[in-house]
């Protein structure tokens, strides 16, 4: 791949996920310092700071980029902040990458961190009858697990997925996360334990639904030229070869959180359009940009908001055809030791979601996997990795990394 589309990942860092109850700035700071140390760079070397915002901690995450820059000490570095719900981290990476590829800076720091409340995610407060996210709670009592459960039930009724299949995804990811020092949940889980946990949104049980967590993640990105200079002429070990931040194509025919309805496909008649489901288009755009296909993948980090949703992702990222996700799981293809391990980090299942940090954390895991440094959960000989994720209101998020 030519230089002009790649950026080097020089450093990755995370603050462990948990329910620590401290200010999110602390987590971001720990992650940023770890990423800088990993890169062998000083904070003063950073020319551009890209922050992923949290909406849960005051004036949009204190507008994250500047808050992290102040916490590290003002240096006059240029700044940008963005919010794209669960896709915020990828959007922040995309922003930093664009600055580097445009030649506007050589070194950029991307940081995201969150402190989360207990229980179901609820909408921002107030009486806001023009906000679909507020209205879906008010009029339908539709929580996030409601939407995850709709997808899960549809798999059961259409493809014959079973409750045990969903439980097996959880068991697999729990096993993957055991050796991950940044994971919040690191215990082994059995199918029986999953199936004995309380039903939340039928057919999804408590242990199959992603928790909300505190955490922070950061990466240091650099131009290829800078990376070679910094590395004494050597090629950088890990590069980002594509970032997809696509929106859906009309008509989006799958019901998406927080919407009340899908698009109408009437205008397209029987011929259909370029629309359909959103998720498959997210990685398709990343693969096209990187010049690879799903057959080139050695591992994937996908957004397992529910155990069942991971099976949807197998199909959406092109590991198998529609309705074949269960077979892939049952054959062990997506477990460590299989052909394409999915969520070797343990995924959201072991982390819980720290929204603005999560897409960056996915990238951190890929960096460590591609370096061969993912102790206790290493995908042997990994050369190509993809992350996949989707943010509320239509934000695609996928990053292709290679060594």
């Amino acid at each position, binding site marked *: 791949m030519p230089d002009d589309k790649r950026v080097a990942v020089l450093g990755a860092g995370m603050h462990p996920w948990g329910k620590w109850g401290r200010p999110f700035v602390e987590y971001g700071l720990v992650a940023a310092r770890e990423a800088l140390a990993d890169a062998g760079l000083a904070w003063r070397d950073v020319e551009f700071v890209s922050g992923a915002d949290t909406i849960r901690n005051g004036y949009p995450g204190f507008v994250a980029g500047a808050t992290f820059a102040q916490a590290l000490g003002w240096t006059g570095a240029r700044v940008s902040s963005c919010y794209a719900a669960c896709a915020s981290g990828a959007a922040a990476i995309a922003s930093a990458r664009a600055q580097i590829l445009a030649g506007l800076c050589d070194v950029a720091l991307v940081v995201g961190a969150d402190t989360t409340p207990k229980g179901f995610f609820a909408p921002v407060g107030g009486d806001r009858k023009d906000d679909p996210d507020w209205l879906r709670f008010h*009029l339908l009592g*539709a929580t996030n697990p409601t939407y995850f459960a709709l997808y899960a039930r549809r798999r059961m009724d259409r493809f014959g997925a079973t409750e045990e299949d969903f439980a097996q995804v959880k068991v697999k990811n729990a096993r993957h996360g055991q050796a991950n020092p940044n994971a919040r949940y690191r215990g082994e889980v059995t199918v029986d334990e999953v199936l004995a946990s309380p039903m939340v949104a039928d057919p999804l049980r408590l242990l199959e639904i992603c928790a909300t967590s505190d955490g922070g993640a950061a990466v240091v990105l650099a131009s290829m030229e800078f990376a070679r200079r910094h590395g004494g002429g050597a090629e950088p070990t890990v590069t980002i070869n594509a970032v997809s931040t696509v929106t859906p194509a009309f008509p989006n*025919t799958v019901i998406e959180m927080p919407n009340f309805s899908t698009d109408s496909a009437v205008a397209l008649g029987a011929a259909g359009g370029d629309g359909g489901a959103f998720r498959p288009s997210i990685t398709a755009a990343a693969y096209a940009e990187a010049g690879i296909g799903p057959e080139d993948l050695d591992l994937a980090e996908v957004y397992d908001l529910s155990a069942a949703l991971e099976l949807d992702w197998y199909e959406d990222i092109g590991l198998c055809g529609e309705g074949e996700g269960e077979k892939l799981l049952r054959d062990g293809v997506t477990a460590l030791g299989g052909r394409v391990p999915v969520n070797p980090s343990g995924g959201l299942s072991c982390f819980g979601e720290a929204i603005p940090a999560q897409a960056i954390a996915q990238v951190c895991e890929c960096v460590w996997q591609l370096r061969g440094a993912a102790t206790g959960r290493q995908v042997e000989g990994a050369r190509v990795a993809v992350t996949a994720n989707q943010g509320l209101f239509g934000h695609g998020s996928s990053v292709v990394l290679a060594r």
Partner: protein
Amino acid sequence: MATRVPAVEGWFTLGEEGAPALLGSRCAGCGTYAFPAEASFCRNPDCDGQEFETVELSRRGRIWSYTDARYQPPPPYLAADPYVPFCLAAVELAAEKLVVMGQVVGGVTVDDLRVGDEVELVIDTLYGEGDQDFVVWKWRPVAGPAGG
């Protein structure tokens, strides 16, 4: 007797003259529907239509998928005390070629539902406040010849 008040304005009819229905919009230019109604833009990227008529959507559709809410949703959902779990369904409307979410009427459990089942729209209480019943649309299974 309690007065029925829509929990949201302009999203559905109460069916005082005939059967109740969801109120959507239809683009005069390309025919694209939207629910809730769009008044300012058409979602079709190839259409710059700015005229929309308010239309009643199909009262019947088929279940795209379904689930339930075993735990009380957080505010701004106003739950009855004690909390009674309810089902939700995403329902495909054939004529409009779109899928609409809604609660399922009380007394129905997930065991009563299947993807592809036919349901019809009714207006039902969401919560009560004083002598007012705040109502919303819900889906009710249509008992077919095969028992549903």
